[in-house]
């Protein structure tokens, strides 16, 4: 075979010297990408779902929670450093990572390969959704969003369906991202450990999706299961 012949001919003392390791910055940027998805973005996501759950108590409590967050000290620097910059980095670097992969689901339709493909698509959907969401609820309201603003947006069926898709995409991306993190940081090694991590992170993803959809339900149907607290 031509390839084999060529390989044999190359085995000379010069060819067998050890090539130097090629340094790369991409290791640290990739690790930062996976970390930023958990902290601060994932942590903020949890906080965001928590605060918005006040919609399930009462309009007054929701507006109070919004006002408390809108009046924290150092608001804009905190938003910029803990929310905007990490999301912009995670989003744009994520698109760069996407560009280095070529999905081959049609040939190899295994479970984890599906998750890989879905992670890319949900990431893109989430990035677009978050961009729109921040524009509408943060900047169009001059940073003074209230229950009324969110309820008005959700009154439009088009925006409402975008919210549903966005919350499902974000929840999947976060749940599967936690599993990716466990793998990429070597927190789980064995196949059983990987499987257990998949169950745990999957449950977290489902929990986020359920809570997110219940909040939407609260806005659309004025459903307030915790209203008795406020009375």
């Amino acid at each position, binding site marked *: *075979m*031509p*390839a*084999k012949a*060529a*390989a044999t001919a190359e085995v000379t003392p010069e060819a*067998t010297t*050890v*090539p130097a*390791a*090629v*340094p*790369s910055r*991409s*290791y*640290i940027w*990739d*690790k930062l990408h996976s970390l930023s998805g958990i902290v601060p973005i994932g942590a903020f996501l949890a906080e965001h779902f928590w605060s918005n759950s006040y919609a399930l108590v009462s309009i007054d409590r929701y507006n109070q929670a919004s006002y408390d967050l809108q009046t924290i000290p150092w608001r804009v620097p905190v938003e910029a450093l803990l929310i905007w910059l990490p999301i912009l980095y995670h989003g744009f670097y994520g698109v760069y*990572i996407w*560009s*280095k*992969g*070529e*999905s*081959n689901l*049609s*040939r*190899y339709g*295994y479970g*984890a*390969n599906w*998750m*890989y493909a879905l*992670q890319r698509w949900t990431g893109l959907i989430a990035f677009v959704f978050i961009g729109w969401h921040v524009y509408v609820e943060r900047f169009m309201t001059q940073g003074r969003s209230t229950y009324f603003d969110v309820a008005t947006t959700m009154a439009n069926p088009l925006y409402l369906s975008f919210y549903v898709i966005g919350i499902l995409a974000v929840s999947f991306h976060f749940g599967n991202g936690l*599993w*990716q993190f466990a*793998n*990429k*940081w*070597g*927190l*789980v*090694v*064995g*196949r059983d450990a*990987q499987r257990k991590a998949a169950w745990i992170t999957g449950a977290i993803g489902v929990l986020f999706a359920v809570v997110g959809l219940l909040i939407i339900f609260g806005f659309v149907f004025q459903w307030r299961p915790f209203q008795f607290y406020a009375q």
Partner: protein
Amino acid sequence: MAEGKTIVVKIKRQASPTEPARWEEFSVRWRPNMNVIACLIDIAENPVTRYGKPTTPVSYEANCLEEVCGACAVVINGRSRQACSALVDHLDQPIRIEPMSSFPIVRDLVVDRSKMFEDAKRLRCWVPIDGTYDIGPGPRIAPERQQVAYALSRCIFCGNCLEVCPKVNEHSDFVGAALINQVRLFNMHPTGAMHAHERLQAVRGIGGIQECDNAQNCVKACPKGIPLTESNNDVNRQALLDAIFGWMFR
């Protein structure tokens, strides 16, 4: 089975890296327990297409015919695998055979897999036993450790794990699961561990372990059943601890 039964084989052919690829169909006489290599041998004996047109014999690589040498990896019916263990009776017809697309083509089904050898050199995938004098026997290894290492050592560098990986393509330099498994194997070895830091440094380099996005096709495609995703996560842990704490203790 009926005598004179034939099977149809479609092969993607390319005379040289610069010439265009084309498909050719062959008709091969069926025999019991045939594998794909047997079809290629028959075609080499009588290189005439299904439509009676004489052609050149199909170039392919094969050696052991029992899935231990790794030479005959090709894409059969869209799936990357060893041709020797691909039994004709288990395949849908016509049987489509293509070269692996993750490696530069040489001719027909022959690809140049030297990328893996170059990466193995870069990642120091060996145990240093040679010196200017006899350095004596290495330390003993516990049987439990031997068992784990044995499973990892069965890699045959066939390239299936690279072929099925969404992150091995022209946009990415990813070394692939086989090479990361080698890093784990040689870091496990008491003598090989003397170079553990060098390997971990190299595996964080260009096309290193950070490129893996856990599509995990590699472990499904591995003909040797190597726990490639375990190796990957283990090397991830080693590389990360070395990156975070390594500089403190040197």
